[in-house]
């Protein structure tokens, strides 16, 4: 199958705030040992697509380091394989420059598409959590001799404002596309996953659509009337984790007894770059209930309903509840962490309380991002001993103990 996949991984991911302060959204850790992009990459290789371009722009270093030559996905290949595509400087013929949107990013990399001789290009987002076989979608596309196929799934009416909403006729041909409507009769949301005829996409982006910025809102919308644009319905689990509540919810969903997204399916392995870490160590006084625990973690305290990343240390008498703790963070003796997302290599001091009390005041600086009671602690932040942090609090990355005020940190504040 001659398909090139392009994963859009260049966005700034404003919805994840401190988690994307030091890295691109697709490189944010997920489910303990994974990173968000592992799902799209693993879907590609599990669908026998071994020719993958990853389009980067914002804070790409973590992503570069994670993907490198693509070994964990068997993408270190002589033919095809994975390529990291960076923005490049403009040339006299108008190509290159910083990219302003998904259509722009693809336009600047059309030469990669042409050189690959792919018939179809599969456009994927780097911030979705799902398991999807792309083969049936490409088959569907070919059977209908479509120019564009858009993957869609049913959503409930209260969610339509987050998606591009699609209306299709009885044959599945798309007749209408509305970008993030408050009210609509359509129930099918575009997942941001497209199959394009390579030639059609190239001709459009360099021809009539040369000033378009967004693939969904601009390109698909204008192609509906001019080309054969079809919908392909996907029915499995799919989550866009571009906001803090969605990211938190998708992580917590993994803790269900029978999770909607099964990570232990031997026929659909999610590959990642695993570090060399010893097994999880549980001390005799440890108590763990309803968690995901990653290799290299050392648990001496209590951990309830949480996702614990590799190398995390939960010291004696500490308690972690309903939280996501990323790699190598240390929860000090007697500290309590409740409904929080703590990024990598952070230190929660002895006896500190993170996510304390009933006051759910939304975050002053980010009322739209943080209003559900989740507290965020950035990478390498140091919460001093015995500090008390309320809900919807944000501790920026790298914040040291001396930046904290003397008293409690009330709900809704940022440091």
């Amino acid at each position: 199958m001659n398909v090139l996949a392009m994963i859009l991984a260049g966005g700034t991911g404003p919805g994840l705030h401190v988690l994307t302060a030091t890295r691109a959204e697709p490189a944010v850790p997920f489910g303990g040992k994974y990173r968000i992009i592992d799902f799209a990459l693993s879907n590609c290789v599990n669908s026998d697509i071994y020719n993958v371009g990853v389009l980067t722009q914002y804070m790409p270093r973590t992503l570069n380091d994670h993907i490198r030559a693509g070994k964990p996905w068997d993408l270190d290949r002589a033919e095809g394989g994975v390529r990291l595509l960076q923005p490049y400087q403009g040339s006299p013929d108008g190509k290159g420059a910083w990219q302003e949107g998904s259509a722009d990013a693809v336009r600047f990399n059309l030469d990669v598409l042409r050189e690959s001789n792919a018939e179809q290009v599969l456009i994927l987002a780097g911030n979705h959590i799902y398991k999807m076989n792309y083969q049936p979608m490409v088959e569907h596309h070919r059977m209908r001799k479509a120019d564009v196929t858009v993957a869609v799934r049913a959503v409930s009416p209260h969610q339509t404002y987050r998606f591009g909403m699609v209306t299709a006729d009885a044959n599945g041909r798309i007749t209408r596309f509305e970008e993030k409507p408050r009210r609509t009769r359509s129930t099918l949301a575009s997942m941001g996953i497209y199959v394009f005829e390579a030639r059609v996409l190239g001709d459009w982006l360099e021809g009539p659509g040369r000033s378009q910025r967004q693939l969904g809102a601009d390109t698909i919308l204008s192609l509906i009337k001019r080309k054969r644009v079809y919908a392909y319905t996907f029915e499995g689990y799919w989550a866009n984790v571009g906001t803090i509540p969605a990211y938190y919810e998708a992580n917590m969903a993994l803790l269900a007894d029978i999770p909607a997204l099964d990570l232990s399916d031997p026929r659909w392995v999610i590959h990642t770059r695993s570090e060399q870490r010893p097994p999880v160590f549980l001390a005799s006084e440890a108590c763990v209930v309803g968690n995901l625990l990653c290799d290299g973690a050392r648990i001496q305290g209590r951990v309830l309903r949480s996702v614990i990343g590799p190398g995390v240390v939960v010291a004696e008498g500490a308690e972690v509840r309903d939280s996501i703790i990323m790699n190598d963070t240390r929860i000090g003796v007697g500290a309590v962490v409740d409904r929080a997302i703590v990024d990598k290599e952070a230190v929660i001091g002895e006896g500190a309380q993170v996510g304390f009390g009933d006051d759910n005041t939304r975050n002053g600086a980010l009322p739209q991002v943080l209003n559900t009671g989740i507290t965020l602690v950035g990478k390498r932040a140091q919460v001093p001993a015995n500090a008390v942090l309320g809900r919807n609090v944000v501790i920026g990355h790298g914040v040291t103990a001396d930046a904290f005020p003397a008293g409690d940190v009330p709900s809704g504040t940022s440091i």
Partner: protein
Amino acid sequence: MRVVAMIMAGGAGTRLTVLSDKRAKPSVPFAGKYRIIDFTLSNCVNSHIYDVAILTQYRPHSLNEHIGIGKPWDLDRVRGGVRLLQPYQARGSQDWYSGTADAVYQNLNYLFNREADLALILSGDHIYKMDYRPMIAYHEEKGADATVAVMNVPLEETDRFGIMTTNKAGRIVEFHEKPKTRDKGTLANMGVYLFSVEKLAERLREGRKRKPDLDFGKHVIPGMVPTDRVYAHPFDGYWVDAGTVDAYWRTSLELCDPDSTLNLWDPQWVIRTRSQERPPVKCSAQAQIAHSLVSNGCTIHGRVEHSVLSPGVYVSLGAVVRDSVIMNDTWVGPGAVVDRAIVDKEVVVGSGVQLGHGDDMTPNQQLSDRLNTGITVVGKGAHIPASICIGRNVLIDADVDEADFALFGDNVVPSGASVAPGPAEISEEVGA
């Protein structure tokens, strides 16, 4: 100085009973996700020795699979890297390796082709963390022909080891293999040897004429002590030969203690292994896990106490795993109790099974010298039928089926018994 390491991985490891029935001892799983040879291999690369040969003979498939091209150890290299050296046929000779030194003798050409100055001879079945670089420096400083790593052992255990007596300069003046008397000192041979290649080749050629089953500890080193410059290099770190069922069990469970002397978490000395792609450990709302080491891919619904679990183990609701070592992808059924057992890979422990039950400590009738401390051992791929009660010191062979337990009445396998697979024809006749 070019150093080439040669790891001896050909022995049968019979004292580990069923654990090494289907695999060489160096590839027996250890500490959950590792295999025994990982410690020696990681020592090599952490000591910046990137030219490593592994000498195999007994059941090498699992080892070959594990080593592959050496990727996890960064040994997939253009220059150097890891090589697996199997026994081979040549014109006029077609010999198996008949001893450790004989194995090296048959691969002397490998050392010459690599233009090695020094040969570091290692054993693939020891668990230890050792930087070989100080030993190499010591060897050169002393102008030695051979250097033997030694460690102090308690005086009452000297009869288990090769014991060295040294002079003030560290030169070995006497060597006694497993001495019965307690007056030879306490410096024990760790099975880590460094040779100057020229001298090694010379001594192996001479020695082989006299003895075909040449062994380093028994023949080569004692033969060199009177004539050559043989030095002892003291080592005081962690070193264990987990060569018996009891030692393997104890060494494994010591890792569950927070002050275990084998630190697997040292970022300066990472133990590398071939990790399978597995999801994080999942513990359900009913799970109770304490005092244990649990690997990725495990799913825990029941209770796990003081145990080491390899990747992919499933402990069902109401099951209890206590004081045990459970290897990859074994399934422990609902309500089953596993106590003081070593359970190999892909075993099915049926629901309600009592594995390791009661106070009867009768040693195993067939292997009373190897299974006598109350540990029950289950071989790879065995299926234990539901609700059966199995005593202590029981040996269950690899691949036994539910039907093989029919010999035991009342659903009870008494302490000290062994369960072996029945001949396939008979079970077919019974079925007919």
